């Protein structure tokens, strides 16, 4: 594993116990400049992970707790009349940060959810015909409760497609939970910064230098084509998904300190990149789609 990454993973593992794969996936997402969607039951450590990531990279961090009465202006900010200058001054909302934790995103109304759309894709906010650039880098880590929970709105497909990856932390292992119980006070101990923004940008650049061979691209294409020609899912994967898979696979290989992507890398990241776009769970995607595709020799 890449030395820098190894340090991060080690540091994050102090907070999120026994979840190395998930931590690496979250890192992959961050290094690929993608937005991350964490789907879990309440109390599984979603917020903790987001926090930890923000602190690790020393990012400017904001958190919005989404509720069903939250309005778009509440997150983007609004223009307020300034009596002294006799003009409208724009007051930035919580969106103006480097890492936004959108907690329980699916509790908000679709109207408010859509306010995030422009910000996530264009990295800008338009209010009163005025376009404001968001700081760089800009990440959204959104958490959502499982659909069947009371008082949730399903995220629209357009918004789901904008999330680079979806992750579930799941229940901790028995040992991890024991440790959690015993050292509850340590839970938020991680407040030290390992990297600055500059270093993060460099890691992001370096990760995309990984070699992507034609055979691997063929494998990605096979996956995409399979979803387009099967009746297991309603719609196939978009080209954005195939690009995301390639990017994620490159980063995944980079994290493991390999200078080329193997089909195994694609195999590893594909469920996290694709499952939410097809409306499937990770297991469903793996079982019904990934296992049926020839990985190639």
């Amino acid at each position, binding site marked *: 594993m890449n030395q820098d990454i190894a340090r991060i993973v080690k540091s994050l593992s102090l907070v999120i116990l026994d979840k190395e794969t998930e931590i690496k996936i979250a890192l992959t997402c961050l290094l690929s400049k993608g937005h991350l969607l964490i789907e879990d039951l309440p109390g599984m450590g979603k917020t903790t992970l987001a926090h930890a990531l923000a602190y690790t990279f020393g990012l400017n961090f904001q958190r919005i707790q989404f509720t069903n009465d939250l309005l778009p202006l509440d997150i983007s900010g609004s223009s307020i009349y300034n009596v002294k200058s006799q003009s409208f001054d724009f007051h930035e909302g919580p969106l103006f940060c480097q890492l936004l934790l959108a907690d329980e995103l699916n509790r908000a109304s679709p109207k408010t959810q859509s306010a995030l759309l422009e910000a996530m894709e264009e990295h800008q906010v338009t209010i009163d015909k005025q376009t404001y650039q968001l700081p760089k880098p800009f990440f959204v880590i959104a958490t959502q409760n499982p659909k069947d929970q009371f008082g949730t709105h399903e995220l629209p497909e357009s918004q789901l497609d904008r999330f680079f990856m979806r992750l579930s932390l799941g229940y901790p292992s028995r040992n991890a939970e024991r440790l959690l119980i015993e050292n509850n006070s340590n839970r938020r101990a991680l407040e030290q910064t390992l990297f600055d923004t500059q270093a993060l940008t460099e890691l992001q650049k370096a990760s995309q230098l990984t*070699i992507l*061979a034609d*055979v691997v691209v063929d494998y990605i294409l096979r996956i995409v084509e399979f979803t387009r020609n099967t009746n297991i899912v309603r719609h196939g994967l978009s080209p954005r998904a195939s690009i995301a898979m390639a990017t994620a696979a490159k980063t995944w290989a980079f994290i493991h300190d390999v200078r*080329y992507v*193997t*089909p*195994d890398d694609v195999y590893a990241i594909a469920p996290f990149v694709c499952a939410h776009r097809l409306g499937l769970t990770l297991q469903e995607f793996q079982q019904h789609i990934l296992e049926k595709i020839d*990985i190639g*020799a």
Partner: protein
Amino acid sequence: MSSNLTFTRRSLSVILITQLLLLFTEIGIANSALILLVVIWANLNEKKVISNGVLNSVTVVAVLVSILSLGTAKSLSIFVSLLLIALALKLCQIPSVMRYQKIVVLSFFTTSLTFLFEQSIGIAFIVVSQWITLIACLLSLQNQTIRTLSKRRFKRHAIGLTFCIPMAFILVTLLPKLPSFWTMPTQNSAKTGLNESLDPFNISQLSNSDELVFRAKWSKSQPLEPLYWRAIVHDFFDGNAWRESHLMFFDTAKFKNSEIDYSVIVEPSSNKWLYGLNYSDSKHPQVNTNEFGTLFKTDNSLKNQFEYKVFSTSVKQEVLSDHQFQHYTRLPIANNMEARKLALALKRQSTSVHNFVTLLKTFFIENRFVYTLTPAQSISDNSIDEFLFNNRQGFCGHYASSVAFLLRAGNIPSRIVSGYLGGKLNSEHNYTSVRQFDAHAWVEYFDGMRWQRLDPTGWIAPDRMTGSILDSDTYRQQLIDNLGFNILGLNHYELLLDVQLFLDNIDYQWTRWIVTFDTQRQNEFFSDLLGQQWLYKTASLLLIVVLALGTLFFIWTRWQIRDKRHKAIIVFETIQRETNTRHLSPINTCILLQQRYPEIQQEINDFKQQYSEFRYGQVELSTSSLKKAHALLKYIKQNNKKSL
């Protein structure tokens, strides 16, 4: 009616009419006219439906007309004419694409029927044009033209056709020719040729035509002496005509030594007599030699072109028996008394047989006999007297006939030989063409030692002797007047002469290599090429060629579908197949193998690294790595065997 159906019907009509023009002499004017009428009817009547009753009655009429006009003997002509009328009647039925396709396919057979009667290159050219038109019809029925035919289809058909050509060549030249199970009924139609009985006084005009009789291909160069092509020996005089005797039909002992050898290609004729110089013999199984040294065919038909090799020797010494002497001096009835008197007078004057002949020659020269192609006709019993003492005008037959008569009257054994004199040499290809106007008759007499040739025509017209009649200016004009307008009349023009020679040569090569290429020629051709046991050699050669082609084809197809990927990938896939890990990725496969074969864990790990680098990391695989991969595969295979 759609345009392509109209096109097809008109094309088929034109093809049928062309064939009628080629064959009307064979199938008769009545049948041709009937077929023509039906074709015209079919074309005029395109919209109306003709009932089957009408068609059936026309068929019955056609059968009756065929049999009545041709007679039952000409079964082949009847057969052909009925096929053609059936095709014409087919055109009268309601047009549909399906029906017309069938008619076009049938037409491929009917157009080929022309070859039953004629096989010249000109006919072949016309028939091939008919086939091309038929192919155009087939295309048109598919709503296609050569331009709309897609390139792929065109290419496919072109390739198919190209493969057919060497196939056809092999089938025709190499495969031994087997006798057919069924042969066409023989055609009895008479072609012009020599007459078996010679009665020149009965003929008012010699029917000279420029029709080709035969060609002789010289193995060395053409002999210098005048070419007397002997065909029929007339040794029996019935008082008016000279006839052939039964001796002509007996196959006798062969002549041993050969002085000239050449091969002859004979055009079809109604006779079975073949042509040769001096005393001839042939090894051809279908050619016999009689005691006169002339050749004849074993079966009576010469309806196709026929080729045979000839060996000729000079006249041999012999002794005539009393019976033979009587036979050759026999003059049956008492006529031509003046001529007999003359012969006896000359006999008294002469000292020897040769002296008698010299006296005869003097008689003919002194009495100013004239050579003509248009003699006066005579029907009296004393025609020789009339000729010798009154007319004194005639052609070779008159001179031969009267001289032979005088010789017999003088008690000298003699006979008349008819055949051809000379011929036109094509010096470039070393063959001589003999045409109908080269027909000639001369005398052979026995001088006590051997048979001598005597050509009395030479006394009167010496220039006639040197070669073809065409070479003698005196008679050429007469001949051309006789023939009417003909390309021969234009012989003075160099270019036309060249064209004529060129066309003649094409026809000669066509006949020599295509039409007469039968078992015999095939045998000779390959014997010359490969030596005696050519059949075994050819068979083995054919087998080798077929095997080699088959192997090449097999290799080619394998090569076409060969695995074009890198060898390492193929090796790795084989490993996966051997270890049942096709569903795993290369890295997982290696991990599994490491568990399965812990003893070579390190080697597998190396392979995993090198293979991944090569496959995904754009690093070339070294030869040693490839060798190691092979070694790994070998190890796994051996292990698999052991565990089994």
